[in-house]
C-alpha cells in the first residue's frame, strides 16, 4: 500500500480496540519467565556449546600473535576461533567498526577471539589463558583536544544549514547568548546483554539473537560471513531492551556462527557485561555552541547551533543540531556539525540520537535567554513557536501543538508556583522547577506484514517486527483486531522471525506507527480476500463481532476462512507527505528538584510530560515508553557518563556499578498526559512515534530546575554534585 494522501476515515477510527488501554498480550509470558530471550533458547536434544569472547586490551594497533596453546588444553575446550584465524572479513553495511577478524585493532574490547567449551564456566576460564600480543599505536581519544582537527562530515549527513544572515543578525541583536554546552558519551545499558545462539544445518544457519532490526542484521550477517542472505534464518522474538544498541549487527552473532561452524555444534555466546560499553556502540559525546539573538520583546532574530562530536573513520556525527532547524522561529539561522576522528569505540544511535543531546543543550540555552529577557520560559517558547519549517517556510508542520503541551503542562504542574532562583527552601533542600520543550521527528519506514485468518476465526499476524519491551505485540494485535472486527483474544502475533515479511523494525521511534500501518495494509488485503471470496462488494463490507456483514448477509469469519484459511500480505510504503510536510512530535517536560544545600545532591521530586504525538495507540504502552524515557533522561541529567581514559582510549566505568543509571529511589512520581489528537499526514493509523519523545528535553528540564533551585547554571552534563559544590551557600 502506498500512503500518498492524508488518511481519511478508515476502520481504525472506530477505536473499539485501538487507543484502548489493553494490557500487554505478552505480559504473562514475561512475568512468568516463559518469554524466551536469545540466550535462553534451549532444545534439550541439541548439544549446545558455549563461547566466551576475549576483548582487545588495547585501543588501537595490531595483533601480532595469539598463543592459544594453554587455552586449547584447558578442560572442556572444544575449539578456539581467533581474529587471525578468520582473517579480514567484509564489514556489514551499517557497521562502522569491524566486528571481528584480521589483525587491526580499532577500539578497546574489540573481540580478538572466542573460546568454545562444553560449559560456560570452562569457556570463561580458558578464555583467560589466551595470550595476545599487540603493537599499540597512538590514537586520538580526547574530543576536546581534537576539536581543531574536526571536519565537516559527508554532505549526506546534511551537516550545515543557513538561512538569512546569522552573523549580522546576531551581532546586532538587542539581547544575546553565546554559550558552550557538553554532553558525555553514554551507554545504552539495556538489561539484556547482547547474546546469540547459532546452529548450522549444512550451509544454512539459524541465529537466535537480540536484534531490533531483523532484516538489517540478516543482510549484514550475510555480508560479514560471506554467505547468501537466503541461507540465514534469524530469530529475535523477545528483546530485553536495546535503545539503539541492537540496531546493527553485533559481534555475538558473528562469533556464535564461527564458533558453531568450528566445533560442529550449536554455540551460545553472550557479551559479558564489562565488555558491552567498549565492544558495542554508544552515544557519542558532544561539545555544542549555541548563539541566540533576540529583540527585547523576546522575538528571536538569530539562532545558531554548532556541534562537535567524534567517531572512528567512516563514522558519522552525533546530529545534535537537527532540532534547532525546526523547533523555533527566527529569520536568521545557522547550524553546523563537525566530526573529529576518535579511536574510541564506535559512536552510533542511542535513543533519540541527535535530539536527545541536542535538546540537552538547546533547552538550557532557551532557559538562559528567557532569563536574560526577563520572560517566563514558557512565554518565550510560545512567542517563538512556528507552524512551518523555519528553514523552508513553504513546508508546514503536518500538525504541531507545542503550545498546547506547554500550556496544559504549566497548568497541571502548578508552574505559577515557580519562584525566583535560589529562593525556595524546605529544610536542607533547595527547591526548583524547570521546563523544557520536547521535540522529536516522526520518521516512517516501509513495513510489511502477513495476516492469516484460519478456520477457527483466529487472526494471526506475522511480521519480522521486534518488540524491544515497547509493546509491539500488543498494538499490532489491537490493529489487527480493529481491522478484522474481532477482540484481541482472537489475534495471535508472531514477531521477530526473518521468515516473516520485512517490517520497519524498532528504532528512531518509527516502529509503532510504521509497523501497525503495515499490519493495517495487510489487513486491508485480507478484508478484500474475504469479501471477494464471499462475493461481497468490498466497499460496503463491515467487519465486526467476528462476522463479515454486507447488506443483510452475515458470515462468521471462521466460516469465511474455510478449511484452507485466507491470507493478506502487504507492505506500507510512504509517498511524499514526509517531504511536503514536516512531521514531528512535541511535548513539554516539567520537573521539580530538590538540591541538598550541604552536599549538592540533586533528587528529583516530581516529573510531568505532556506529549503531542498523534493518535495514541495504547495509553498503557505509550505511557510506559514515556516514563521509561523520562527515567533515562534523569540518568542523563544527573549521573550517566562513560568516563574516557584519554591516555589508554577506553571507557573506564564499563559495568553497571560504574555507569550509574537511575534506580527506583531516584525516580519519584511521574505523570504523563497525551494530547488528544490525530495526524492524518503521518499514516493510516494517524499515529506518530512516542518512544523517544519522552527523552527529548527532559534532561534540560532537570538542569533548568537545578538552576531555579540553586541559581547555579551548569552547562556540562551530567550535573553531579562536584559541579555545584563550590557555588553552594555556606552551611556551617
Amino acid at each position: 500500500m502506498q500512503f500518498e494522501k492524508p488518511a481519511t476515515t478508515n476502520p481504525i477510527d472506530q477505536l473499539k480496540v485501538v487507543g484502548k488501554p489493553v494490557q500487554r498480550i505478552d505480559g504473562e509470558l514475561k512475568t512468568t519467565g516463559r518469554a524466551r530471550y536469545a540466550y535462553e533458547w534451549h532444545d534439550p536434544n541439541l548439544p549446545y556449546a558455549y563461547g566466551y569472547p576475549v576483548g582487545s586490551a588495547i585501543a588501537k594497533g595490531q595483533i601480532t600473535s595469539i598463543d592459544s596453546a594453554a587455552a586449547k588444553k584447558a578442560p572442556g575446550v572444544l575449539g578456539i576461533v581467533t581474529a587471525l584465524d578468520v582473517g579480514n572479513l567484509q564489514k556489514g553495511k551499517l557497521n562502522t567498526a569491524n566486528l571481528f577478524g584480521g589483525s587491526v585493532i580499532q577500539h578497546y574490547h574489540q573481540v580478538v577471539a572466542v573460546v568454545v567449551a562444553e560449559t560456560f564456566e570452562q569457556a570463561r576460564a580458558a578464555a583467560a589463558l589466551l595470550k595476545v600480543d599487540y603493537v599499540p599505536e597512538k590514537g586520538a581519544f580526547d574530543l576536546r583536544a581534537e576539536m581543531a582537527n574536526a571536519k565537516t562530515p559527508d554532505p549526506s549527513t546534511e551537516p550545515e544549514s543557513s538561512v538569512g544572515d546569522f552573523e549580522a543578525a546576531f551581532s546586532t541583536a538587542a539581547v544575546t547568548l553565546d554559550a558552550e554546552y557538553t554532553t558525555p558519551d553514554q551507554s545504552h545499558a539495556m538489561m539484556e546483554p547482547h547474546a546469540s545462539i547459532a546452529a548450522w544445518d549444512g550451509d544454512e544457519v539459524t541465529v537466535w539473537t537480540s536484534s531490533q532490526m531483523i532484516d538489517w542484521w540478516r543482510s549484514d550477517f550475510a555480508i560479514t560471513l560471506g554467505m547468501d542472505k537466503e541461507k540465514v534464518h534469524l530469530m529475535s522474538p523477545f528483546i530485553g531492551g536495546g535503545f539503539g544498541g541492537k540496531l546493527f549487527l553485533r559481534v555475538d552473532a558473528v562469533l556464535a556462527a564461527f564458533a558453531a561452524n568450528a566445533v560442529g555444534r550449536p554455540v551460545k555466546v553472550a557479551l559479558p557485561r564489562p565488555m558491552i560499553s567498549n565492544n558495542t556502540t554508544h552515544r557519542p559525546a558532544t561539545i555544542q555552541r549555541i548563539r541566540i539573538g533576540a529583540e527585547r520583546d523576546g522575538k528571536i532574530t538569530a539562532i545558531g547551533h554548532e556541534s562537535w562530536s567524534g567517531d572512528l573513520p567512516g563514522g558519522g556525527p552525533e546530529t545534535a543540531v537537527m532540532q534547532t532547524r525546526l523547533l523555533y522561529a527566527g529569520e536568521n539561522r545557522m547550524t553546523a556539525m563537525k566530526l573529529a576522528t576518535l579511536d574510541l569505540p564506535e559512536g552510533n544511535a542511542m535513543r533519540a540520537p541527535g535530539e536527545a543531546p541536542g535538546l540537552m543543550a538547546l533547552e538550557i540555552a532557551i532557559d538562559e535567554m528567557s532569563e536574560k529577557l526577563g520572560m517566563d520560559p514558557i512565554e518565550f517558547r510560545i512567542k517563538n513557536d512556528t507552524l512551518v519549517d523555519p528553514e523552508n517556510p513553504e513546508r508546514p508542520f503536518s500538525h504541531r501543538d507545542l503550545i498546547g503541551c506547554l500550556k496544559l503542562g504549566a497548568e497541571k504542574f502548578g508552574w505559577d508556583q515557580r519562584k525566583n532562583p535560589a529562593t525556595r527552601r524546605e529544610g536542607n533542600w533547595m527547591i526548583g522547577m524547570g521546563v523544557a520543550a520536547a521535540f522529536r521527528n516522526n520518521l516512517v519506514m516501509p513495513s510489511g506484514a502477513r495476516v492469516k485468518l484460519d478456520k477457527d476465526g483466529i487472526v494471526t499476524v506475522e511480521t519480522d517486527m521486534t518488540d524491544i519491551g515497547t509493546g509491539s505485540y500488543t498494538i499490532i494485535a489491537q490493529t489487527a483486531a480493529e481491522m478484522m472486527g474481532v477482540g484481541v483474544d482472537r489475534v495471535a502475533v508472531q514477531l521477530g522471525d526473518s521468515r516473516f515479511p520485512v517490517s520497519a523494525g524498532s528504532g528512531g521511534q518509527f516502529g509503532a506507527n510504521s509497523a501497525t500501518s503495515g499490519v493495517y495494509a495487510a489487513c486491508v488485503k485480507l478484508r478484500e480476500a474475504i469479501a471477494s471470496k464471499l462475493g461481497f462488494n468490498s466497499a460496503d463490507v463491515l467487519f465486526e463481532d467476528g462476522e463479515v456483514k454486507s447488506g443483510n448477509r452475515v458470515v462468521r469469519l471462521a466460516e469465511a476462512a474455510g478449511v484452507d484459511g485466507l491470507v493478506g500480505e502487504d507492505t506500507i510504503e510512504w509517498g511524499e507527505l514526509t517531504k511536503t510536510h514536516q512531521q514531528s512530535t512535541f511535548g513539554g517536560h516539567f520537573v521539580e528538584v530538590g538540591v541538598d544545600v550541604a552536599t549538592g545532591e540533586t533528587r528529583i521530586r516530581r516529573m510531568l510530560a505532556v506529549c503531542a504525538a498523534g493518535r495514541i495507540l495504547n495509553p498503557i504502552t505509550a505511557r510506559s515508553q514515556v516514563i521509561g524515557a523520562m527515567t533515562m533522561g534523569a540518568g542523563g541529567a544527573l549521573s550517566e557518563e562513560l568516563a574516557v581514559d584519554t591516555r589508554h582510549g577506553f571507557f573506564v566505568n564499563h559495568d553497571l556499578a560504574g555507569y550509574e543509571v537511575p534506580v527506583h529511589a531516584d525516580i519519584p512520581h511521574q505523570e504523563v498526559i497525551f494530547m488528544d489528537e490525530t495526524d492524518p499526514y503521518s499514516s493510516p493509523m494517524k499515529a506518530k512515534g512516542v518512544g523517544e519523545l519522552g527523552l527529548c528535553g527532559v534532561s534540560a528540564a532537570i538542569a533548568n530546575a537545578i538552576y531555579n533551585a540553586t541559581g547555579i547554571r551548569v552547562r556540562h552534563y551530567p550535573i553531579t554534585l562536584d559541579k555545584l559544590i563550590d557555588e553552594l551557600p555556606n552551611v556551617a
Partner: protein
Amino acid sequence: MRAFTYERASSVEAAAGAAAQNPDAKFIAGGTNLLDLMKLEIEKPSHLIDVNGLGLDTIEKTQDDGLRIGALVRNTDLAADGTVRRDYGLLSRALVAGASGQLRNKATTAGNLLQRTRCPYFYDPNQACNKRNPGSGCSAIGGITRQLGVVGVSEACLATHPSDMAVAMRALDAVVETVKTDGAKRTIPIADFHRLPGDTPHIESALEHGEFITSVVLPSPVGGKQIYRKVRDRASYAFALVSVAAVIQPDGSGKVAVGGVAHKPWRIEAAEAELPKGAHAMTSALLADARPTEQNRFKISLTERTLGAVLSEAKG
C-alpha cells in the same frame, strides 16, 4: 573464573587448619564480593573453604556491656537487631545505606570488612594495578580518579575502602576477633585492621594468611546522636563519594569517621578535639594531609559540608 576445589568447614579450627594447608585457599561467606572478583580472575583461589555452616551468626552482650557480633551475621540481620538499633544506631544506619536488600541478605560482617576496592582499574584485568598485580603500576594515577582516595594515598595506589559498615565500626571503636591457622586467638582494634596502601596496596588488612575472623566486638554503648550520612550520585545502590559516621555528644564532643576518602575508614582521634569548633576546623585537621587529584578535590569540601550538615542535625 579458575576451577577450584571446595569444602565446607565443620569448625573454626578446621577452617583455619584447611587454610593453613593451602596458601591459595580463601574463605567464602556470602560470596557477594569474592565470587564477582573470581569471575574476573582478580581473585584466583584454588580452594574455597565455605564458612557458612559455622554458626557465628549471633549477636550477644559481652561481659562488659558491649556487643559481640558473629562474623557470619548477615548485614540485614545486624541492621535490624533491636540492640543495635537502640544502642548503636550508627551501625544500623550505615548498613542499610549500603548495597541492596538482596545483597545485605547474603553479606556477612566479616565479608563486609574484607570487601575490596571499587577502583575501576582494579576491576579491569587489562590495566596495570598494583593492588591486583603487585609491581605492575597504577593506571588510576593520571586517569579517572573521581571516586578514589584523597588522603593516606600513596604513589602506588589511590584506592578507597568501599564499606559503609566499617566506617560506622571505626567511629564506634570496634575490635575484630580472630583465630590464626595455629589456633591462636587475637584481637585487632579496627583502627589497625585496615591498612594504608603504602607501596604494598595488595595487602589490605592486618590479617595473616588463613587468619579467620570470628566476631566483631563493640564496646559498651556511648549514647550521643548517631548519624550516618552517605553522599552519592544516585539515591541508592551506589558507593559513597563521601560518607560521615558521627557520634555527637550533647556537649559537642564526639567521634567522627569518614568513608570514601581513603584506603580505610578515615578517623584521626586527635582531630576530634576540633569538633566543638565546627566542621571546618575538624575537617582541616582530619584531612590536613590530603593529596587529592583534580578530579576528586571536591571530596575535601564535600567532607566538610557533609560534616557540617551532620553537626547541625545533631544539634537540631
